[in-house]
């Protein structure tokens, strides 16, 4: 059922932000207590999204993760309590957090581990508090229901372990993490996978994850322009998103704080800056050109309706903008900056806007306040005009600037004019031809420059950094400068997460196997009287391919045949860090060579997966290419420890291939056909007497892990030091030689010189 109501012009002032909603006076979102009791996660509440990226030592977010599992046990003789917590840091994959950034209460302490897509830590949850022989010992009152385990699918998790002496009351203090780089997304501005502080990246992630609207209904061009606007003006999002919200409402409300409006044009969603912008996406403080002038010629009868902004919404006020001062190496805390016009609203009224959940830049908060102040001061009215159709039907869009100049005959020979500049807020195009434009006054100065834009561009905060007020750092047990990453330790399916039956829902036993139900898809049992209501779509989009996969080594070649990827377009090769998930473009190929798009795997890709993404040409998109198709993905490229069965030519005559020595080793050695040396290293023509062939080591290993080589024959090419540390036969160790580090044709025989 659809209920349609009229859209009164009087509501426009509230819809477009001229009138603010009721102010909510409450504690700043960033004012979390440091020493409160550890919070536990509950079934049904949202999984938080930590979204931030530290740039130039500013940004990041201090979060207080909730625990899902715990283990408590005490020592019998000392009653020392060991607390272990399993915590969910964020949805998605986060870069490894350094030791200096993890806290309990206000202090850096504890032993930590971090992992992704699985349960962190290997300890078993439970309350194992037992008796103690310590006289007068405290009775530890720890929770009895310590949690089972789950699969932590697509989550970054933490394990925290710490010990507390008898009677230490801090055992249940909340743990905190300063996240410098949050969840990894594909950034719209550089098309790279990594952390982001761009509000548009978060908006796109939420739109896509919520599956509310199809990809086609997202205006990528408009989104890119909006992302550039926030980036160019340093409006960054560094926050944690954990409050359950309506997506459209959240996008609209939060977009306001980035001076963006959520618009829908031609059915597609996008954001548009609330102030005019230059080509380089900075705020345009120069002369504003309007796109069209409406006059009496265009206006239809009864086509003029005006509504002035009510007095309470034009009153001078002072804005208290709450943001977050986020020191590079300490706990962030909320700050407030009061913004008002000089000599106006000195004693209020005051209105508070809390941006501390995501704003770590004072200028950002001040510019938002300046925008609101300028709108209140300069925007006087809204207008709705009904005009006949014309060329502007297809040329004017939401946010465009137009002029309305209407002659008003009030005195003979002395006509007046309604002559103002407006910003288009709403367009209604009827099939009858009439167009209804809903407009907001766009105030300009005598040089036709936007008063609001100039106010915003000129606004900046005092720039004062307040001392955090902390003098005692003695409670830190971990170093405040230790950049070592937390250990990557965890288990996919904990042994204590025992199968409990059930079916579906998780691909196995344990909690996963017992908590979901997947219904069988309807089987085709012949043609019924009526065809099935949901037949497969014949227009289904192309799915990903798997043209290559599995193990590959440096030196190998990956191919995407034009038989498999036949459209005109491009193939991009990426390497994806196996630990951080960071994606980096290696090569872009727009043309196949000999029927193949080819990539030679180099040692630069060690410890990375290699992914090929193909996109067909699509002139209708902003990039010129259509939806990406994954063509193949390798396993992480290993340090080359593969054992090769090789033969090395031992004859001094390069043409004599009859004398060979076989060996197994981690490197391939190939003989040069162009370079020969004498036995004392002098260059010789290969046809000369005494010329000896030279060899080149391919795939030489650079790490020390060669212990997987357990058998060999002949001359082993491995490192002496590595061989000593490996559990291999003495014969192997005795015959090990140093691997030359050079990768040139300089290896040659020196015997019988």
């Amino acid at each position: 059922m659809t209920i349609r109501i009229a859209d009164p012009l009087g509501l426009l002032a509230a819809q477009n932000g001229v009138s603010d909603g009721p102010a909510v006076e409450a504690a700043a979102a960033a004012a979390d207590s440091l020493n409160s009791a550890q919070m536990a996660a509950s079934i049904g509440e949202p999984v938080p999204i930590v979204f931030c990226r530290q740039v130039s030592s500013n940004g990041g977010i201090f979060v207080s993760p909730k625990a899902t599992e715990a283990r408590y046990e005490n020592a019998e003789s000392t009653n020392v309590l060991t607390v272990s917590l399993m915590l969910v840091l964020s949805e998605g994959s986060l870069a490894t957090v350094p030791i200096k950034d993890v806290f309990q209460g206000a202090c850096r302490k504890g032993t930590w581990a971090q992992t992704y897509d699985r349960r962190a830590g290997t300890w078993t949850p439970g309350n194992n508090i037992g008796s103690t022989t310590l006289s007068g010992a405290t009775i530890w009152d720890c929770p009895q229901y310590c949690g089972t385990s789950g699969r932590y699918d697509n989550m970054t998790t933490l394990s925290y372990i710490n010990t507390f002496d008898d009677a230490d009351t801090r055992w249940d203090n909340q743990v905190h993490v300063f996240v410098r780089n949050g969840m990894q997304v594909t950034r719209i501005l550089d098309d790279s996978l990594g952390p982001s502080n761009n509000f548009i990246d978060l908006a796109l992630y939420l739109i896509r994850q919520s599956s509310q609207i199809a990809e086609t209904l997202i205006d990528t061009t408009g989104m890119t322009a909006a992302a550039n606007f926030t980036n160019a003006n340093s409006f960054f999002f560094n926050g944690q998103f954990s409050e359950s919200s309506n997506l459209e409402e959240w996008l609209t409300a939060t977009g306001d704080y980035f001076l963006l409006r959520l618009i829908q044009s031609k059915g597609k969603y996008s954001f548009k800056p609330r102030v005019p912008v230059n080509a380089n996406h900075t705020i345009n403080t120069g002369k504003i050109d309007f796109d069209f002038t409406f006059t009496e010629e265009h206006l239809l009868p009864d086509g003029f309706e005006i509504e002035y902004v009510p007095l309470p919404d034009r009153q001078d006020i002072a804005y208290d903008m709450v943001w977050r001062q986020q020191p590079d190496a300490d706990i962030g805390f909320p700050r407030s900056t009061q913004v008002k016009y000089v000599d106006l609203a000195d004693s209020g009224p005051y209105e508070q806007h809390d941006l501390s959940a995501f704003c770590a830049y004072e200028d950002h908060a001040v510019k938002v306040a300046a925008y609101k102040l300028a709108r209140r001061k300069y925007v006087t009215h809204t207008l709705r005009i009904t005009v006949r159709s014309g060329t502007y039907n297809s040329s004017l869009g939401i946010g465009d600037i137009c002029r309305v100049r209407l002659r008003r005959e009030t005195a003979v020979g002395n006509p007046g004019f309604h002559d103002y500049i407006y910003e288009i807020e709403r367009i209604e195009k009827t099939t009858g031809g009439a167009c209804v434009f809903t407009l907001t006054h766009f105030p300009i100065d005598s040089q036709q420059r936007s008063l609001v834009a100039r106010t915003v561009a000129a606004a900046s905060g005092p720039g004062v950094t307040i001392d955090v007020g902390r003098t005692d750092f003695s409670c830190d047990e971990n170093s405040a400068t230790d950049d070592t990453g937390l250990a990557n330790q965890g288990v996919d399916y904990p042994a204590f997460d025992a199968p409990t039956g059930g079916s579906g829902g998780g691909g196995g036993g344990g909690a996963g196997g017992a908590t979901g139900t997947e219904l069988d898809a309807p089987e085709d049992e012949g043609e019924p009287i009526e065809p099935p209501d949901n037949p497969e779509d014949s227009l289904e989009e192309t799915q990903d391919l798997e043209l290559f996969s599995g193990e590959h080594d440096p030196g190998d070649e990956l191919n995407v045949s034009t038989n498999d990827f036949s459209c005109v377009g491009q193939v991009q090769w990426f390497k994806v860090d196996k630990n951080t998930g960071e994606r980096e473009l290696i090569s872009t190929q727009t043309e196949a060579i000999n029927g193949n798009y080819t990539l030679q795997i180099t040692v630069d890709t060690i410890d990375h997966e290699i992914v090929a993404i193909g996109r067909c040409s699509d002139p209708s998109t902003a990039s010129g290419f259509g939806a990406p198709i994954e063509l193949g993905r390798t396993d992480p490229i290993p340090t080359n420890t593969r054992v090769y069965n090789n033969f090395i030519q031992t004859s001094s005559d390069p043409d004599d291939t009859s004398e060979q020595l076989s060996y197994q080793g981690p490197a391939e050695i190939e003989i040069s056909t162009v370079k020969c040396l004498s036995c004392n290293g002098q260059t010789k023509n290969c046809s000369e007497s005494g010329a000896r062939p030279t060899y080149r080591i391919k795939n030489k290993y650079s790490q020390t892990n060669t212990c997987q080589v357990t058998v060999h024959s002949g001359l082993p090419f491995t490192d002496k030091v590595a061989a000593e540390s490996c559990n291999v036969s003495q014969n192997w160790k005795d015959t090990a030689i140093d691997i030359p580090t050079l990768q040139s044709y300089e290896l040659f025989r020196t015997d019988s010189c």
Partner: protein
Amino acid sequence: MPFTVNGITETSAAGGQDLTVEIPATNSVVSEVEAAINNSRFVEIQIFEFNSTGNQSAPQSTQTLIAEFTGQIQGLSGNFTRLELELGSALAPVGAQVPPRKYNSFLIGAPLRK
């Protein structure tokens, strides 16, 4: 075939951007419309303006595009002879959709209770 469509609205305000199309319920229309709603296909509407005075025998070669809209079929109703398509997108103005994931038993089992 003839059809009617109401006005196209572009706005920066939330909600209210749907479009309604009325179309005869012929066999081919019913088939295509059912396939479209079942498979979340897109529907494109383009409205052209032209003056056909003196050109009754053939459509104008030059037409002015005055409005266009892309959406999915959000609602479908009608009677035996007529179908009414409600086009739009599913960015619902009510209900909570984000953050998109919630803690459930598969993800965290039976969690710690304090």
